């Protein structure tokens, strides 16, 4: 049934992604691909994988953005995947009942046996979370590793999404965002976690943490040549003074 659950879910499982610590290594994306190649949504078909124009289904994509200008500007690595929205229009537009949102934990999934491949759900998602599998003729999306997080054959410490397990900088956190006392909820509260495109009112479960602000550029002492040199680099400052005479 593609109507959304009547009651908001007791648990809202999701991710909190720290844009301050993400280094843009794509480990989350490749490890997601690796796990899900054999998971419930398998295969994640690649077209022409070793050819001139490789193309394929991925549930996680890492973009690079620049924000701000000059010394106050930042390069931000930005992983993008399904946000498991409360107001998931990708579910309600589905004509067949293939797309659904689980009442028990809020995870949005596709039943591939019911999907007719009309692609309307991918149009309804503002975030580009859904990718069509040309070879299979059905829509695919992030499962929040539903086949890991409840998997009793895995050690308890491993019952987390593959992207969270893979992140070398601990920039990805998994937990219950409906529980105000959970680690992820406290992290969101402490760091000012935010929603993507709040103006569209999809009410994403996943939250992003903003990059911490650097010391303002004015705090860097002017150098003899006017070049930007970090104050802690005494040697470079001495070289700068020497050549500026």
């Amino acid at each position: 049934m593609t109507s959304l659950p009547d009651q908001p879910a007791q648990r809202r499982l999701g991710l909190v992604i720290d844009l301050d610590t993400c280094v843009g290594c794509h480990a989350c994306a490749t490890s997601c691909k690796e796990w899900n190649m054999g998971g419930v949504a398998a295969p994640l078909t690649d077209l022409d994988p070793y050819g001139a124009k490789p193309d394929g289904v991925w549930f996680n994509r890492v973009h690079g953005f620049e924000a701000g200008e000059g010394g106050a500007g930042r390069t931000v690595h930005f992983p993008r995947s399904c946000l498991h929205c409360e107001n998931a229009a990708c579910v309600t537009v589905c004509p067949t009942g293939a797309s659904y949102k689980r009442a028990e934990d809020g995870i949005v999934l596709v039943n591939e046996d019911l999907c007719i491949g009309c692609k309307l759900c991918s149009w309804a998602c503002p975030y580009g979370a859904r990718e069509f599998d040309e070879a299979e003729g059905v829509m695919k999306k992030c499962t929040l590793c539903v086949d890991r997080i409840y998997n009793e054959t895995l050690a308890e410490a491993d019952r987390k999404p593959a992207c969270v397990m893979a992140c070398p900088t601990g920039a990805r956190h998994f937990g219950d965002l409906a529980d105000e006392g959970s680690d992820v909820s406290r992290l969101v509260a402490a760091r000012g976690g935010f929603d993507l495109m709040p103006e569209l009112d999809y009410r994403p479960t996943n939250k992003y943490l903003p990059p911490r602000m650097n010391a303002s550029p004015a705090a860097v002492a002017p150098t003899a040549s006017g070049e930007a040199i970090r104050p802690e680099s005494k040697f470079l400052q001495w070289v700068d003074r020497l050549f500026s005479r």
Partner: protein
Amino acid sequence: MHPAYSVIYFTVASGAGYGLLFLLGLQAAFDLLPAHPWSAPASGLFALALVTTGLLSSTLHLGHKLRAWRAVTQWRSSWLSREGVLALIGLPVAVAFLYGMAFQNDAGWWRALGLAVAMLSALTVHATAMIYASLKPIRHWNNPLTVPVYLLLALASGGVADLAIDAAFGDVTLASGLLGLALLAAGIAVKRGYWRSVDAGEAPSSPESATGLGAIGRVRLLERPHTEENYLLKEMGYQVARRHARRLRLVAQVLGFLVPALALAAALMLSGGVLAALALFLALAAMLAGLLVERWLFFAEAKHTVTLYYGAGRV
């Protein structure tokens, strides 16, 4: 948005077909059908051909065509499902209506059925339009004029088709011709209003809101996640050059409205005969061609918010 030809043909053809069925249904209900006994049934058959080829064409882009029947199950939440349900209810009703019209002219039941045909036709086109109008990530579709455009263009193209077929049986009246002209005028007025609205409208989303990084400053893409195309870019990243879009809008207006209106006016002045019928078939051909261009633009000009993650400005 990627303009899929199967969907463009579907919305134009079934729109004209439902517009024609709507007019026939009302004419039957209010006893206004043309005098020639084969004129209205011929219009009805033409409408059915447009509607059924359109509906079949709409299944061509599906990944699993044989599962298409499942699309009727989710009418509670999905406009696509509602469209499918309404189309499948409407077809047998329209066939029964046309059977009565052609073979049981003396009976009254099919005239009453005309009202149902008109209502189901209007609701089906409305559902089609709502599929697009309800999508918030696509500002060009999520517009209050999307539904009026679909309804009026369906009605106007159906009206021109009706006039052309009536003319073939020598049955064009001044009143029906003037109604056709009025529908064309209303159609172009609301379509031009739609274009003005999407051109002037403020795009609600930006790279800043898509990334949440606006507090730092202006946000722009540094690098894409992948070097080659992917599904998102192929399906949602389609963009038509602005200059081409302006010219194509002009083509759509000339072919879709101006030529049909002039041909219709000429046919009215000729007051019947072979030349008038030819002028009206020219009007119909031009209008359908113009609407194909208009519908192509409806897709090609529409921008999806996912492009914000791939370097687009505001969407």
